[in-house]
């Protein structure tokens, strides 16, 4: 890297910020992908939860914490619905969550207009409970004279937690097994259906956390926020080594994928390159990652007869 600003503490705090909210989602999406599924509704769900927080708090004049609680219930319900439908029908999660993605996109705009007559919910910082919520979701930590957003801390915590769950708990073993071969897993007694539904609900809970962070940090939410992010989460997870076919990957990898994303996103302007090149690099990294992942799979499945 040629820019000294990029390497400075302030630079690091800068590019770790977009990486953090993306990273929280990428870790949850990675768990889901290891379990063999996609969630295209994850991006728009961050918008849905942020809007729910805003509408319940501002339009219904509730304490912000009640609004945040309502948003969590909404998110978990969407996650359960996705997981239940996928396990019930056996249809590809790609198509089912595409359906919920479009439905939520419509609901976000429709309901926001219905309650506010505009496409924005604002004034979240005027609601009781904001100070405490800001401390949890949007405060800044001063480390050695540089301000870091608290989302970075949450991101690191969630990455560590997800890694521990994947590698050191029964549930983690079931996630790998369900994504690796669902029928075989069920045959030895793994509750594959419950595992899948839990994973969808985990992704939804992560979307709730990120949505709440956005709502509290920005204090106003656009009705179209979060749309398009779902593919970025998947890209980060794949760059981090998750197989598209399930059964292999890591939470740390997904976090590194998010970190690379954040560094590229801010690195290109620092280098005074045209920001239009960003997506070109993202696509190239994705292709490289997929090719590398293919080698891993081939190694693991090459039977020596």
């Amino acid at each position, binding site marked *: 890297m040629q820019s000294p600003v990029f390497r400075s503490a302030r630079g690091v705090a800068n590019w770790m910020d977009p990486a953090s909210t993306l990273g929280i989602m990428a870790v949850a999406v990675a768990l889901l992908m290891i379990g063999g599924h996609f969630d295209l509704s994850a991006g728009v769900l961050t918008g849905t939860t942020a809007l729910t927080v805003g509408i319940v708090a501002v339009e219904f004049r509730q304490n912000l914490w009640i609004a945040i609680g309502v948003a969590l219930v909404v998110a978990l319900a969407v996650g359960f619905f996705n997981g239940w439908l996928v396990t019930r029908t056996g249809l590809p999660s790609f198509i089912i969550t595409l359906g919920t993605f479009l439905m939520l996109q419509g609901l976000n705009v429709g309901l926001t207009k219905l309650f506010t007559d505009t496409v924005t919910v604002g004034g979240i910082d005027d609601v009781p409970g904001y100070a405490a919520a800001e401390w949890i979701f949007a405060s800044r930590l001063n480390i050695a004279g540089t301000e870091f957003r608290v989302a970075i801390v949450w991101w690191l915590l969630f990455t560590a937690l997800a890694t521990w769950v994947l590698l050191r708990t*029964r549930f983690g*073993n079931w996630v790998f097994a369900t994504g690796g071969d669902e029928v075989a897993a069920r045959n*030895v007694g793994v509750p594959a259906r419950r595992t899948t539904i839990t994973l969808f609900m985990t992704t939804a809970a992560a979307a709730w956390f990120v949505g709440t962070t956005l709502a509290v940090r920005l204090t106003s939410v656009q009705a179209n926020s979060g749309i398009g992010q779902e593919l970025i989460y998947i890209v980060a997870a794949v760059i981090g080594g998750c*197989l598209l076919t399930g059964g292999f990957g890591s939470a740390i990898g997904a976090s590194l994928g998010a970190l690379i994303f954040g560094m590229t996103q801010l690195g290109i302007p620092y280098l005074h390159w045209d920001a239009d090149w960003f997506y070109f690099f993202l696509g190239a990294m994705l292709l490289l990652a997929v090719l590398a992942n293919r080698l891993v799979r081939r190694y693991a499945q090459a039977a*020596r007869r």
Partner: protein
Amino acid sequence: MTGASSGVGGGSALLELRDVGKDYGTVVALDGITTTVRAGEVTCVLGDNGAGKSTLIKILGGVHRPDRGEVLLDGEPASFGAPREALDAGIATVYQDLAMIPLMAIWRNFFLGAEPTRGWGPFRRFDAGRARKVTRGALAEMGIDIRDPDQPVGTLSGGERQSVAIARAVHFGARVLILDEPTSALGVKQAGVVLRYVAQARDRGVGVVLITHNPHHAYPVGDRFLVLNRGRSLGSFAKADVSRDELTRLMAGGAELDQLTHELERPTS
């Protein structure tokens, strides 16, 4: 011809099927199947494709309930609604290609669905150290030499995979071990290795049900043979009552095979 003479290996009856049948819609997949699985014996189920072997496995393994007849476990009527229930009753099934998850380490596969844990509450965790050690020990006990329990199962050969799956079932206290075509995808040498582990499981007092379409693999290791054809039993034989050639002929549908032999013979001029 139903030589249901008892007392070959001589163990107690673990599992009994009485007149069991199963339909898929209007198709009769299995009908009137009666047989006994005894401790320390190998019961072979032989049949060509479509004979009803997989349906029988699914009934024994708890995937399907039979539509007719009874399944008796230790003389008591039993009905399994899920593979887990059959497993808890001591009936383990090793499926042909679906025995293991290829991308997972051997020790993770070995304890899949029965992971040992330590700690309490939210800190309850998979005891990986113990799992690794026990896996290595259990495999060694069955005489299976695995270089590294951390390697993914996908790097093992087909015979090794079947052997590990058998060792797993035996380790978890299976009293009845159902093997679905364990040798069909294997070469002669590998098949021999797997059959040796089948014999080992038998010697430990496990009642083995070996499902195969290959009488040459079934005959040396089997004590009792149930031959299926199009969902019906062609008879249940003790080893003393049947020869390998008779078994082959029965399986292929007797007369049909004679006809085929006749058709394929060179015309004698």
